[in-house]
């Protein structure tokens, strides 16, 4: 039986080569997968004020510029960010849990006021929110910061996908016609599978 030792030798050789080559091939395959992977992000945008409109649109447009696949699901107050006319978005220091006691924008005299002590003063100033909003808008312009309308348009241009929560549309009594074009109207069941695949998923 001259064949047996020969085949055993060949088999041993095969095994040794496989052991040698495989780990490196597997590593290459994993790296190739990573390299060809398009990064993706899903965002749930829930807030409808001028200040909180920035995070979703800044992150979405920047990610799109980096070549990412981005989807934003607008729900609850976030739906306001999709209205045709968003010139009425306001900063609301009252009821803004993240906002410090002093206004972070506007001229020095405005920033130096300690608005919340007593809070009544702030709540009681007629048109306070209009002033705060105007000052934020001016500060934004003076500092070369994009407007929400601009960032929203840039996001759409860069193929960021906007999904409007149909349930909230009904809840708030909006009509589809109130919103900009290019929206998908869908629900959480549509959003979740997208979030599952995404590299980054954020609730804002």
């Amino acid at each position: 039986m001259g064949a047996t030792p020969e085949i055993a030798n060949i088999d041993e050789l095969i095994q040794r080569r496989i052991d040698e080559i495989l780990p490196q091939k597997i590593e290459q395959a994993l790296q190739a997968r990573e390299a060809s992977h398009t990064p993706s992000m899903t965002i749930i945008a829930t807030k409808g004020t001028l200040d909180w409109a920035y995070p979703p649109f800044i992150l979405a447009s920047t990610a799109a510029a980096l070549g990412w696949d981005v989807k934003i699901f607008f729900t609850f107050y976030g739906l306001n960010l999709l209205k045709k006319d968003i010139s009425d978005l306001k900063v609301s220091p009252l009821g803004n849990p993240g906002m410090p006691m002093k206004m972070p924008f506007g001229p020095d005299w405005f920033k130096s006021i300690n608005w919340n002590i007593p809070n009544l003063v702030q709540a009681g100033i007629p048109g306070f929110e209009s002033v705060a909003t105007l000052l934020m808008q001016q500060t934004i312009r003076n500092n070369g910061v994009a407007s929400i309308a601009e960032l929203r348009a840039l996001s759409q241009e860069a193929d960021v996908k906007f999904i409007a929560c149909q349930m909230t549309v009904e809840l708030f009594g909006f009509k589809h016609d109130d919103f900009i074009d290019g929206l998908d109207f869908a629900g959480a069941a549509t959003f979740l599978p997208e979030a599952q695949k995404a590299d980054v998923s954020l609730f804002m």
Partner: protein
Amino acid sequence: MDFDKDLDARGLNCPLPILRAKKALAEMTGGQVLRVLSTDPGSVKDFAAFAKQTGNELLSSGENNKEFEFYLKRK
């Protein structure tokens, strides 16, 4: 350094310089060079990250009197 297209992003803040650069590059052809001028101090790190993620090579990144100058080669 020679360049094929010029982008003046001075006075603009994050994320506008990156967004404009992306748009400018999209209109160019492979191998062409885009020069970007910016005054946003965050753009130094941002353009490095942009180049790394998009594969458009950052040929140079410099500062001169609070103005930043970037050369990007289109992928």
